[in-house]
């Protein structure tokens, strides 16, 4: 069962009023910011005025501005402190207020990422996960895991950045099937090119060239074992996505015309930059690529009682529940 926003807001307000640590911490940090800014302003005026008298007005004003500029670092520092506090203390409670969902560190591991088939081992990637945004939960009998994940090459070039959601799937999946957004494929290819072009010069480049030839031959051999590209009936779907699977019938069994339509609409409805999915081991994985920092609440200077403080957090978490309803993952009809 999930709470709608009004119910969630009510529970949230109860939590805020019964537990004063959030407002106390906010007040403490706000006061500290004000004190620091006042202190800097006094110092900058004193130094500036002294310099005006003893050196020159130009030096005095410059010094005054230079010291005053330091105030800009005070607010972001306090903001970071406050976000850290809210993430560790308030977010676990907030998430459990929405429905049957809880924080769970490292719920999606590398093994799961390589099993999904959207990233190949030959991509030679490394990956990092922001461990504060990982949840596990259950809705309408469907277990799910969410993780804010960043996958990159060893040189730091990004392959994927966004949220990764894994749902239990009620259809038996014997052969994996991947649906990759063309934008996602382009990004992967772009990152791969940068990864190889940054690796050296001269002799090293020659060695890399020779190595590339060997890798290409290996790839050609492997290609026979790789999944087949499948063309489905929906031209709009095929324009935006690439479907790869071992079994054409199973791919069509999973990607029904109505699923394709919903998946297409999903991209617009949830304002995702790019969206890919994979069916494997009786699981359904969705990758939503976005540059936005997800599962964040309001700022230090925002009132905790203001619904705006938690609305984004609620919307993003509720998206997962909506997805189960939207893709009818709890139903066995496959429609």
């Amino acid at each position: 069962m999930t709470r709608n926003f009004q119910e969630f807001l009510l529970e949230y307000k109860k939590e805020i009023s019964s537990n004063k640590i959030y407002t106390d911490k906010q007040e403490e940090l706000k006061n500290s910011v004000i004190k620091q800014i006042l202190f800097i302003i006094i110092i900058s005026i004193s130094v500036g005025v002294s310099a005006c008298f003893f050196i020159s007005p130009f030096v005095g004003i410059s010094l005054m501005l230079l010291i005053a500029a330091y105030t800009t670092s005070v607010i972001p520092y306090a903001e970071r402190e406050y976000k850290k506090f809210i993430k560790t203390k308030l977010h676990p409670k907030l998430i459990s207020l929405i429905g049957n969902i809880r924080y769970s560190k490292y719920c999606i591991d590398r093994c799961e990422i390589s099993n999904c088939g959207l990233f190949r081992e030959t991509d030679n990637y490394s990956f990092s996960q922001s461990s504060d945004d990982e949840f596990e939960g259950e809705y309408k009998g469907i277990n799910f895991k969410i993780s804010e994940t960043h996958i990159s090459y060893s040189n730091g070039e990004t392959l994927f950045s966004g949220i990764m959601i894994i749902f239990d799937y009620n259809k038996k999946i014997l052969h994996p099937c991947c649906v990759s957004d063309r934008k996602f494929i382009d990004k992967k290819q772009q990152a791969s090119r940068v990864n190889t072009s940054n690796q050296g010069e001269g002799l090293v480049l020659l060695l890399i060239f020779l190595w590339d030839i060997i890798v290409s031959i290996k790839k050609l051999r492997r290609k026979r074992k790789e999944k087949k590209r499948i063309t489905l009936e929906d031209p709009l779907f095929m324009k935006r996505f690439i479907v790869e699977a071992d079994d054409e019938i199973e791919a069509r069994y999973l990607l029904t015309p109505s699923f394709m339509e919903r998946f297409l609409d999903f991209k617009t409805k949830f304002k995702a930059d790019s969206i890919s999915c994979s069916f494997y081991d009786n699981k359904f994985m969705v990758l939503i690529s976005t540059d936005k920092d997800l599962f964040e609440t309001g700022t230090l200077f925002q009132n905790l009682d203001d619904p705006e403080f938690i609305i984004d957090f609620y919307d993003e978490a509720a998206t997962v529940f909506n997805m189960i309803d939207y893709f009818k993952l709890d139903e066995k009809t496959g429609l």
Partner: protein
Amino acid sequence: MDSVTITVLVLSAILLIYLYMVYIGIIKKKNKVLEAFASVDVQLKKRYDLIPNIIVIAKAFMEHERNLMTEVTKLRAQAMEIKSDFKNIGKKLSLDTELADKMSKLLVAVENYPQLKSDKTMLLTMQTYNEVEEHIAAARRFYNSAVNDLNNAVEIFPSSLIAAMLNIKAKDFFSAKSDERISPKGF
């Protein structure tokens, strides 16, 4: 050899290679249609195997649907008699459409028998039937996609010439009747 002969030879070789590639493409497409047909056949066989189970359970409760059940049994027997040959595809698919239609009606009629609807074995059988229906739908889509590829090759120049030489003709698509799929409620 002068340059003209060499050019002619090279061009002929390129043309031959091209024609051979087109030939390979057509044969592959033709075989894909056969593969797709075999897949549809496998899925249809699953349905035929499942129908007697549904009929046995339904018979005990659905007194008023005897005619419908007899029709289903008759159609199943007819469909099973047809040899699994590509030549019989039209016949097989039209019989299957009819059978699926009757089965849908039967499963919708289950709604009127609450005792039967709540029977665990019936529920499980109907879920399995639903699953098989989805597999059949997927196999038909695969078949249609394979037929579409083949028909394009058979009808578009220059592959149409080679197809005509090989006597490969365009195949019929499988089209479901609009009222064919009535999903049973509650599953």
